[in-house]
């Protein structure tokens, strides 16, 4: 069995030595299934940190179902994925509202009827990470991050967690669970930080890094994040007005 030695890890990757099964391998990300059934990832680019991830210089050519050992002894924590509640700067509302319009796109419009009830989006949409799951992840992240605990409807998310294993892919379900559990990917964390601040260039860079990720994922996540922010601020679902959300 191949042993892999990362140089940095996220704070929620607890055990120092563990055996995993390869789930999927991409040029810069190796997704692994742990014995606990959770998704773990080895990444070669520090921008890709997410819950249960570790940074490694490179990894060998590995096939799905192969076993690997990941050694994390004495490896420092490079990233903390825990969402820390902050107050969103309302200056950016015009910016985040337009992300809901991404749902007008052909490949995402299947989500439109469910904006008021994102739980219905579980597993909805094309791809191995259905866009509906990205929306839910963004939605949960916004509610978990913004400083308005009253808007967090635990019943809504309990219902999502109950259905997640049967309604969507394992990999995508892991993303939803993390978001509901208050864990966030680095790009999302950078976005939250930017939206709490006042720098335009930080905000545009942070949004750009998410917008361009995946085929549809980034846009669906941003749309969900926008809906979540609106919920957290007004407790109401954004209304469509003349073709645009407002």
């Amino acid at each position, binding site marked *: 069995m191949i042993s892999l030695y990362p140089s940095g890890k996220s704070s929620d990757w607890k055990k120092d030595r563990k055996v995993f099964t390869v789930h999927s391998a991409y040029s810069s990300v190796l997704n692994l299934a742990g014995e606990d059934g959770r998704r773990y990832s080895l990444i070669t680019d520090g921008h890709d940190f997410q819950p249960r991830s570790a940074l490694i210089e490179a990894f060998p050519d590995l096939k799905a179902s192969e076993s690997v050992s990941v050694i994390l002894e004495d490896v420092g924590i490079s990233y903390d994925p825990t969402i820390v509640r902050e107050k969103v700067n309302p200056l*950016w*509302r015009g910016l985040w509202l337009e992300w809901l319009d991404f749902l007008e796109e052909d490949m995402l419009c299947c989500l439109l009827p469910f904006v008021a009830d994102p739980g219905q989006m579980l597993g909805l949409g094309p791809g191995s990470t259905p866009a509906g799951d990205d929306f839910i992840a963004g939605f949960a992240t916004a509610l978990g991050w913004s400083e308005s605990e009253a808007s967090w409807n635990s019943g809504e998310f309990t219902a999502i967690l109950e259905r997640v294993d049967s309604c969507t892919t394992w990999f995508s379900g892991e993303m939803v669970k993390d978001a509901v559990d208050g864990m966030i990917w680095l790009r999302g964390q950078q976005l939250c930080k930017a939206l709490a601040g006042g720098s335009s260039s930080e905000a545009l*860079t942070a949004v750009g890094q998410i917008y361009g990720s995946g085929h549809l994922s980034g846009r669906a996540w941003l749309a969900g994040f926008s809906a979540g922010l609106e919920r957290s601020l007004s407790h109401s679902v954004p209304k469509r007005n003349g073709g645009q959300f407002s």
Partner: protein
Amino acid sequence: MKRVEVFRGEYYDSVTLMLVAKELKKIEGVADATLNMATQANLHIMAYASFPVDSIAASPDDLIIGIDCSDDLWPSVLEKAKTYLVSPPWKSREVSTEYNPKSLEGALSVLPEANLALISLPGRYAAAQASRALERGLNVMLYSDNVSLEEEIRLKTLAKEKGLLVMGPDCGTAVISGKGLGFSNVCPIGPVGIVSASGTGLQEVMVQLNRLGVGVKHGLGTGGRDVKSSVGGISSLAAIDALKDDSEISVIVAIGKPPSPEVRQKITDSLKSSGKHAVACFMGESARSDEPGLRYTTGLEECAVVTASLVRGEDPQLARERLWNDYREVETRGRREGAGISGRFLRGLFSGGTLCYEAAQVAGELLGEVYGNAPLREELKLPDSLDPIENSFIDYGEDEFTQGRLHPMIDPSFRASQLKIQAEDPSVAVVLLDIVLGYGSAANPSEEIVKAINSIDRKNGPLFVAYVCGTEGDPQVYGRQIDLLRKAGVYLFESNRRAAIFAAAAVAGKEKR
């Protein structure tokens, strides 16, 4: 074999359509490819290029793809076109680039101090967005055309109430504090402020001023209809007022085709009372005497020459007289050079509307009746712009050529194909062209023109005469474009008017012999 396929209700922007067509033409075995929104004008152009569109039932909201290739190749090329439309090969995966806001509110979130919105949308959506921008306290540059006259009046009235300016609709060029918007050339900032109802007119005057070492601070477009009585010059007058208030501006210039009489009066009154030097260039008007505080010019180069002399504190009349002498020399040379050429007629093939208008005027003075798709007089309008007769001037930037396809300043390929057709016509003696450089224009516009010239199959072919409107600072680099054209044997001149005088004189000289 040329075949077409219609895709109902599929809309793509004209840049995408142009780029996909270019990609398809790179495929071995594809002789031609064209992708257009199925407007009547585009169907007409496709029919002219022998694509079988006669029996096609399509609306302007449909996409039509035409490909010239073998039957064997057709399915795969068509499939390739569909793939390219969905996933453009020239678009790289952009993970880390900055996000560009998609809405006015989004843009204002990140740029709350903004005071101007540039709106470039299909005309039917543009007015609503312009209204929103005005309501948010923004001046508007309305690049879009096909905005109704009623909407234009409503927008400009609203802007006036709010102390704002609407540049447009159909405003392709503006300069704000030396920064170009839309089609614009790289020129220095200086003490001149320009109000222009004409895009390429503004470009030409700025380029000529640049050559005379004079810069422009603001170039405010108004849209061509602003000076009609229906609109009443609302934007022109607001723009002049804005320039009056700018202490860094010492000369105010107004450019355009002749306004309606009452608007003309308001504009000239405002210019004369500006307390600054003022120059009016209403092309097509008869020459008239200067008035206190206001110099009248009838040509774009003259406008620049007079303006530059005012900036320098020189005598504008002397500058004019030097210019007339130059023009006389150009005319004499044209008559001489035209002696040995075959053919009888002049064809002006233009990308800039005002440049076309000015050149047609010059040609009219030397040759009599000049036909066109946007002629000086309605009775000289060509029945078919693809089939010019006698002395004709075609503006390929007119709506008939730009609905659902790119403006010829952005994509010179269609004009280049027409150039080849016209130049191979044995009755054509001279082909006159403009090449407009600057931001927004094609990366290397002369390249396509030169390719077309080099492909012409005609003994004793016509004279090619061109004017390149641009500067060394432009992305396309003036000197580089000139070199390309010169190597292809094109006669080149320093202004649009000079090129037109030479071309018309070459034909006029032949007629007398």
